[in-house]
């Protein structure tokens, strides 16, 4: 104490006290910061919900009802969560063009900011799967081979070996997964859009979803290569058979016609 009282009039004492005070405030701020941002977010969130509700009334309410309660033309959106909205609107499936066996993927008409607002509004109707963050869906470092095994076990029966898509009953189908972003793949597994079953984290943990995304990216993404040459759509023996008939036998018959047309002739002169 003696030392402290002896130096309390030191010229730098004020600086030290200031630093301590700053550290204390900073520390306290850091300790309570999450609550602080949440508070700030809440306002942003309510703003987003507000904006989302406006977008919803224009683009969605005619089928899903003014309060998302659903009508005869569209299901209730209470409890579908923001992930479902982000997937459906982000891939252009919603707003739907027309009712039918299945709503196809098309050009996205909302910006990501608008989609987020819509998602916020729909999420406010009832708790549901939340839009994943990049750390959740990013396939970096995932086990591709394990993903392949999981894919063949859970996905291939509708989406084909490498996600080329396949037919379901009465005009429904499992779409081609080529060019689908990791986020949308994750959300599809999470929410089970349209005819797809959902794979919540309780049945398929986040890590397995990442593995599957990594596999799909490896075999059907932009960087996927086909070591054997043209993949012929990756559809298996039907396209191979068609190719063999049209180009294989077709070329051989053309060659046969050419050979037969060039017969040996006794040359004079």
């Amino acid at each position, binding site marked *: 104490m003696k030392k402290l009282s002896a130096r309390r009039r030191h010229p730098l004492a004020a600086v030290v006290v200031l630093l301590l005070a700053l550290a204390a405030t900073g520390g306290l701020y850091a300790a309570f910061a999450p609550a602080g941002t949440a508070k700030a977010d809440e306002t942003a969130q309510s703003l987003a919900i507000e904006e989302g509700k406006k977008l919803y009334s224009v683009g969605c309410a005619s089928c899903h009802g003014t309060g998302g309660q659903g009508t005869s033309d569209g299901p209730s959106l209470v409890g579908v969560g923001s992930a479902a909205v982000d997937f459906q609107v982000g891939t252009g499936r919603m707003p739907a063009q027309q009712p039918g066996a299945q709503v196809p993927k098309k050009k996205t008409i909302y910006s990501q900011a608008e989609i987020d607002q819509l998602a916020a509004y729909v999420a406010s109707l009832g708790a549901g799967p939340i839009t994943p963050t990049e750390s959740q869906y990013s396939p970096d470092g995932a086990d591709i*081979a394990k993903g392949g095994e999981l894919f*063949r076990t859970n996905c291939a029966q509708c989406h084909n*070996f490498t996600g080329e898509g396949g037919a379901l009953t*009465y005009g429904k189908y499992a779409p081609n997964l080529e060019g689908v972003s990791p986020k949308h793949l994750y959300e599809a597994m999470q929410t089970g859009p349209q005819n797809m079953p959902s794979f919540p984290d309780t049945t398929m943990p986040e890590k397995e979803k990442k593995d599957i995304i990594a*596999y799909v990216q490896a075999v059907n993404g932009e960087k996927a290569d*086909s070591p054997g040459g043209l*993949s012929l759509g990756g559809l298996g023996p*039907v396209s191979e058979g068609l190719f063999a008939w049209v180009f294989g036998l077709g070329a051989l018959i053309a060659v046969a016609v050419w050979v*037969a047309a060039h017969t*040996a002739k006794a040359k004079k002169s």
Partner: protein
Amino acid sequence: MSTVTDTKKAPAGERVADWADGRLGIYTLAKANMRKIFPDHWSFMLGEICLYSFLIIILTGVYLTMFFHPSMNEVEYVGPYVPLQGQLMSEAFNSTMHISFEVRGGLLIRQIHHWAALIFLAGMFVHMMRVFFTGAFRKPREINWLFGFLLFFLGMFTGFTGYSLPDDLLSGTGVRFMQGAILSVPVIGTYLSMFLFGGEFPGGDFVARFYSAHVLLLPGIMLGLVVAHLILVFFHKHTQFEGPGRTNKNVVGMPLLPVYMAKAGGFFFLVFGVIAVIAAIASINPIWALGPYRPDQVSTGAQPDWYMGFAEGLIRVMPGWEINLWGHTLVLGVMIPLAIFPAVLAAIAVYPFIESWITGDKREHHIAQRPRNAPTRTGFGVAWITAYMIMLIGGGNDLWATHFHLSLNSITWFVRIFFFVGPVIAFIVTKRICLGLQRRDKDKVLHGRESGIIKRLPHGEFVEIHEPLSQGELHRLTAHEQYDAAALPPAVDENGVERKIGRMEKLRVKLNKGYYGGDSQIAKPTVEEYKEIQSGHGHH
């Protein structure tokens, strides 16, 4: 042959030939066959495509056997293909991955082998149809037709066993399909399946068993049949189309040596080249993308190679009927397709015998017919192809659905209905087209070819000038013979006794009338008709 007294030595080549002749009799063989004549027509080379692709399959297959391990022991994949690293798989799959990614030229050879197999079967199909539509299966070639049919039939199963060897998810599903078909056989199905797989499916045996069938048993039989097929072609001589100077007793064409040896040899390399190019640019059966077989996994789009697509279609469109009796299940949904499959193939195989019974013609035929001149047969053939193709649509119904945005169920119903209705429509339409073409031929013979030149007569009428056909063309269009429809003999014979006519004979005559009756062929122009028309020159 040289004699001991020769002072000057014969050239080396001659001495070798003499040596061989003394032991193999090659001079007599060469004398008899070197000048063997073959007629020229592109469609006569379809069989060659089959022969050469068969040889290519054998050559590439031998290479593949050096690296393939027909074993189902489980191993972990440690090869270079990342998306499978660490996965458990059978040695068969592992070695096929090794062939594809590590053996020099392995993937190319594998793809040549597989593409050549598809082309071999497609070639045999087209070759068979050529023989069918030109009536080249008639006496004396019925046995050779059966040899050819057997080659196609065995080729399907050789292909199927080969497709199953890599033990990938696609082929494993195909083997499971086959096992299901075996299980549906009443009473003995389960025993057969246990016998074939050495226990419950999939067991640890089937790859080794399929391997011996694929590389030894089936190709061995096929090789024998190919040789027999070729010997019979030599023995019967090749058929030829109608033309000036061509009769049922001669063959007009080029000699085997040197012309056909050169052509056939060159054609072999062309076939090899085309298949190699296709194998180099297009992937086939990418097992790395399919993954190893596990009975708990399956993929959509699981189809067999095209030649088994017919069977796949039958199973896909058949309603899943079953009968449960006394604790046993009769799986009609699988059993009926399993019965229809060989029945449809047999229909085309036995056709030559049915036709020769209907016509009652016991003569030899060495002239290939033009399809239009046998409308009922052509109609039947097109009907058969139609049924076959409709079942191929059924076999690929899921891809039709996704690629043409159709409902899978509608396609299935279309196939169910048109498997029966389609052939009938095809038969009627084809027969009509054939008769139309016969009429056209008749018209061309009598009135000449339309020249496209319009002439205005002095009184203002416009007429088109018809150019008379050349003598050769006239011959070609009128040389075919036409049967007269058979008729039953009078019901009572000359003594007033009722004649006994068997039911089969009545059926035969009825069918014969269908084949050659009034509205089933157009009587070809007679010389009198021709002369009469030609004498009134300038008119039409």
